């Protein structure tokens, strides 16, 4: 008598389990999604709604903004400074990405052509630079480019380049940005070089050899054999770099002693300074929204690629 009873009970639990089974993934997701909705979803909504509001000191004390429709957007689109900053941000990101990817590819190819000892050494150097926190990298380069006792000015003077004794690199925005690019690229290059070098191991050596035997030059081999294999990894790295370089903030902010002049404004810095510098949170939010949309447009390809890879 006892056996059928447990059997029945067992079947009942089994049935209950089957009925509840489809809910398991949702139960697993619920805590993370709830937290994300609160800390990410809601702020995103707030960002967009703030961009349609006047939100200054007065509103900050009152605790709510005044709806002004598209006024913030009209103001920034009508301001020629906006277009300067957009162009500057895009050019800055493009230069950083191009240098990172170009030099990264060269270093990756170099790694493949080195003997074992040299390869291990160079990889170790890259990993060391990669491991440096951003703030440390900034401090290091600030010291290297110091106007009085910096090694860079000393080296340029030694090499006979005139005008670099006691030279302040941040007097001229173009030179200042050159330093910022150096800091960004120095920190980003190792990841790109090492990842591409890992990708290069996928390139069949016989194919390259065959092309060489058929009389292809090094550039042709790279262009027609090596690069097509690397392409997926290359594109992902380029997009990641675009995302990172488009929103550069800390490097500029700290290198310029937390007081960058308007010549150094990129979208992120401008949005920050409108919001927290002159307490116009509404306008700052509108700039931030523009920045997010530009970034999404620039990385559209990446998102599509990822979705294809993940599958239905």
């Amino acid at each position, binding site marked *: 008598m006892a056996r059928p009873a447990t059997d029945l009970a067992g079947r009942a639990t089994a049935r209950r389990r089957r009925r509840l089974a489809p809910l398991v993934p949702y139960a697993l997701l619920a805590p993370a999604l709830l937290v994300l909705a609160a*800390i990410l979803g809601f702020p995103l909504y707030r960002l967009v709604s703030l961009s349609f509001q006047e939100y200054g000191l007065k509103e*900050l004390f009152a605790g709510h903004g005044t709806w002004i429709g598209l006024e913030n957007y009209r103001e920034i689109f009508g301001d020629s400074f906006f277009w300067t900053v957009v162009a500057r941000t895009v050019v800055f990101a493009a230069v950083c990405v191009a240098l990172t990817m170009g030099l990264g590819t060269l270093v990756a190819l170099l790694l493949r052509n080195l003997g074992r000892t040299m390869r291990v050494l160079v990889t170790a*150097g890259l990993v060391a630079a990669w*491991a440096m926190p951003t703030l*440390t990298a900034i401090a290091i380069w600030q010291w290297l480019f110091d106007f009085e006792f910096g090694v860079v000015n000393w080296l340029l003077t030694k090499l006979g380049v005139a005008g670099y004794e006691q030279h302040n690199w941040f007097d001229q925005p173009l030179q200042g940005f050159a330093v910022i690019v150096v800091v960004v690229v120095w920190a980003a290059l190792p990841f790109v070089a090492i990842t591409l070098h890992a990708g290069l191991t996928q390139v069949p050596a016989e194919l390259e050899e065959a092309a060489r035997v058929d009389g292809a030059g090094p550039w042709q081999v790279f262009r027609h054999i090596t690069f097509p294999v690397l392409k997926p990894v290359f594109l992902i790295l380029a997009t990641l770099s675009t995302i990172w370089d488009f929103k550069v903030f800390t490097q500029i902010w*700290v290198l310029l002693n937390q007081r960058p002049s308007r010549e150094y404004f990129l979208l992120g810095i401008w949005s920050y300074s409108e919001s927290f510098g002159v307490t116009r949170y509404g306008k700052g939010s509108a700039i931030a929204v523009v920045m997010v949309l530009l970034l999404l447009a620039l990385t559209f390809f990446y*998102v599509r690629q*990822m979705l294809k890879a993940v599958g*239905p």
Partner: protein
Amino acid sequence: MTRRRLTRVGYNAAAALVLLVTLFPIYWMVATGFKRGVDILSFEPRWLPIPGTLENYRSAIGKPHFLQDARNSLVVVLVTVLVSLALAFLAALAAARFRFRGRAALVVMLIVVQMVPLEALIIPIYLMLDGAGQTDQLAGIVVTYLTFVLPFSIWTLRGFIVNIPEELEEAAMVDGCTRAGAFRRILFPLVAPGLVATAVFSFILVWNDYLIAFVLLRSPEKQTLGIWLASFTTNHGTEWGGVMAGSTLFAIPAVIFFLLVQRRVVSGLTAGAVKG
């Protein structure tokens, strides 16, 4: 023969240049940290920190609030990483191992969300925390860090779980294991290294932050080490020895953790993306 020799020399010269560019700045930081003031402020660089001194380290550590800020950093990082790891593991399990309605939407959301720069979200987050009286509070900053650490952790962990063959769990279930038992006995031990790697990535992300701590934390006794470090780089032209000693100290935890998982960074960031 000579031509090949020449190429070899060329490659090695290029390698030496790469080594110089990557390592010299780091060497220069460490060396400057151990130099005497007169040797730092010398128009002709002194290449070696001889005679050395620990004075710069003493002055960096002796700066007001160093210990306090180090403790704040540690607390903030640990709490953020643990909370996000727990939440992310469950969510990643669902995203990697279950078929359910809305799964595709979830994956899209996880990718898109990582494109939204925190530099943009900091405005509403600041206003929200300000309204709730949580600016200048470590709890507020932990919540803010979660906004980027959590999606990143879910995504990375999902990559690690996807790469573990599902057949292993199926075999365990054929042998009479329940689904939960299969997760616990088969999947969990296999994904443990992935959990460690994700925790370390998250640690580095949070350790590296400047912007959020700068916006949210005002009083010096509540700040984190990043702000402590940046605050004395601003005294232009002065005390490079202290700055370099502080930068070295700041880098040490990040470097140690980074070296532990560096090999996984490449596979984590790209393989997870490509293989899916």
